[in-house]
């Protein structure tokens, strides 16, 4: 069964109608603001805003968790580590042997955890609501990125799905030759390297063939036209404004509560 990288499941109604660039813009604005300050207010406001907009994605909490759980785990670990190691200021909340948590350190941990999630979620919004082909169209037509590069990358992504199949087949083919996933760790690692080399050979062959097929269809010969117009509409204004609004609210709230903590100071 092939993993179809270029036909991801697109969810929601409003966001898929927006141009990928407006979504990219909103995501970048929000992420940059969250990155600029380490404090739990700005990160909390952004995260709250993102959670309020979640219904736009049209996926259930369960499916959302299935996609986002690595970020949640990472955020929890980062928060715990920070709370454990950050400067111990304020009242002592918990002490047991070498473990010491204070108000100050727990606050720092909370900020780091929320910040991580707040930065990760815009990317999830973008990926869940954007068709890669539309993104490529927008990058090449609107941002005027070189079309050879953009379309080459798009075609290459399709090969990634095929290579996952290829990896599985290679594993079976090698097992049939007498090289299995057995033996000591060194033997297993050697086998892994061999299989990875085999995959590389096949990847190069496929890429070469694909390049020939693209060239035969006039790719890269000169100026080209685009069958699909990458357009902007009212939705894009809404998406871009929503991004700016969330970012502005976060900064304002943090400054007003006195928690704004610019990373470069």
């Amino acid at each position, binding site marked *: 069964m092939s993993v179809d990288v270029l036909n991801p499941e697109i969810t929601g109604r409003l966001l898929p109608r927006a141009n990928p660039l407006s979504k990219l813009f909103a995501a970048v604005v929000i992420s940059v603001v969250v990155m600029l300050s380490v404090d739990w207010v700005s990160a909390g406001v952004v995260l709250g805003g993102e959670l309020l907009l979640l219904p736009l994605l049209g996926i259930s909490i369960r499916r959302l968790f299935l996609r986002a759980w690595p970020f949640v785990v990472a955020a929890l670990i980062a928060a715990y580590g920070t709370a454990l190691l950050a400067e111990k200021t304020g009242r002592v909340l918990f002490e047991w042997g070498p473990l010491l948590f204070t108000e100050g350190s727990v606050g720092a941990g909370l900020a780091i955890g929320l910040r991580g999630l707040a930065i990760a979620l815009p990317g999830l919004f973008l990926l869940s609501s954007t068709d890669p082909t539309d993104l490529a169209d927008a990058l090449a037509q609107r941002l005027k990125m070189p079309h050879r590069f953009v379309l080459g990358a798009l075609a290459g992504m399709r090969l990634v799905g095929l290579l996952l199949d290829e990896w599985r087949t290679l594993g079976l083919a090698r097992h*049939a030759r007498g090289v299995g996933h057995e033996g000591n760790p060194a033997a297993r690692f050697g086998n892994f390297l*061999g299989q990875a080399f085999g995959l590389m050979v096949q990847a190069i062959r496929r890429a070469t063939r694909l390049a020939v097929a693209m060239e035969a269809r006039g790719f890269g010969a000169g100026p080209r036209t685009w069958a699909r117009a990458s357009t902007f509409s009212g939705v894009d204004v809404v998406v871009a404004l929503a991004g700016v609004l969330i970012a502005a609210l976060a900064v304002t709230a943090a400054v007003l509560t006195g928690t704004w903590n610019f990373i470069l100071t």
Partner: protein
Amino acid sequence: MASPNPVSVTARGWGWRHPGRSRWAVRDLDLIVEAGERVLLLGASGAGKSTLLHGLAGVLGGHDEGEQAGELIVDGVSPAAARGRSGLVLQDPDTQLVLARVGDEVAFGAENLAVPRMDIWPRVQQALDGVGLDVPLSHPTTALSGGQKQRLALAAVLAMQPGLLLLDEPTANLDPDGVVEVRDAVVRVLDQTSATLVVVEHRVDVWADVVDRVVVLDPDGGILADGDPAAVLRSGATRARLIEEGVWVPGHRPETRAVSTSSGTDLLRASNLAVARIKRGPAVLDGVDLTLRGGEAVSVLGPNGAGKSTLALTLAGLLRPRSGSLDALEPLARGAGAKPFGWKSAQLVSRIGTVFQEPEHQFLTNTVLEELEFGPRRVARHSEEEIRRRIDPIAERLRLTGLLKANPFTLSGGEKRRLSVATMLATNPDILILDEPTFGQDANTWAELVTLLADLINGGACVVSVTHDREYTSALGSRVVAVDGASASVEAVA
């Protein structure tokens, strides 16, 4: 459909040598193809058919990617300058599709030729209608069957409105229905556009009635035969020469060794077996009851995507049965346990050998000799003499003796296939399983393979093949397992 001007082709003393090769892939070629002609290009493996086709498509590259002699002219100019006037369809459906959706895929070529947007979508619809592909424009390209993918590739080329269609074994990887589907689409398109056609195909009978000229390339350079199909394919001397070169000529089946019918012992038994490609994935095939015996051939037949390969890989002990049972009986198990999936790799290779469709997937070492020695060394600690005693006859038999020092990846297609079979024979398995062993093979390699397998069967081994090839199936006197949709039925001997 808009009718572009058909394109003519001229080769004058043309030749091409790939970088790092001493031998010319094509040389001394003088050929004129008039506009609108339909040409079937034949020749032995390695005669340079694909090279010529790539040359005509203008994708062989510049001087740093090979050496050219003479000249090749397409539509009055060099092929690279005429790109867009010709359209090339390749053999493998998976590596020539570029985009994710059917409509975008067809539009791609027209975009590259800078066709205005308002003209592109009518062209896309026309091209899809032309090849009879009736799916929505937003349909994912990966969800198509092999035959549909090749018709899509054809439509993608048609949207460029080429005056010259170049088809490089477009049906070699398809099941019989897919072959007819693609062939008929090409004929319909040619009738509408009057474009020139040059098609390369091993299986001559598919195209013999469609083309009006057959050109046979001589592996030593130049042209071996040229004329109308009846004259070239039926006249005594040329026909004999074609058969000698391994070209599939209609009405001729290469001679192979007969299989004696003697039933051996039961080796492997499947009861109510369901198979799945990935662990806990959906069962692609269910309720298979089958017993494999020594000294017999079994062919698994059925359309592309029906689960034939998955069944074969499960029988081979490589995939875990989804449900039901697959039991190795004692003559096969010999103490390794009743479940082939649980065997260690070293136990597997001396019991069941599997030849994958793509030989390169199974190459592990840097020389042909090491490939052959690999299996026996895995099974047990043999002395050097013992190993040579095992593999020398196999190398000799499969004509690999002169190639022992060569790198497996540099072999020709036929040689790679022979090596992949030889590596499996080196450990002397009781059951040999082959996935599409005759895809794209010329008649000589085909006959060699069938004879070799017949000897194995006569020697008591069981040979299981996943195949579309009815002639192969009958040449081995195979029992047929017909796979269709979700079920499998065992038929009598073909």
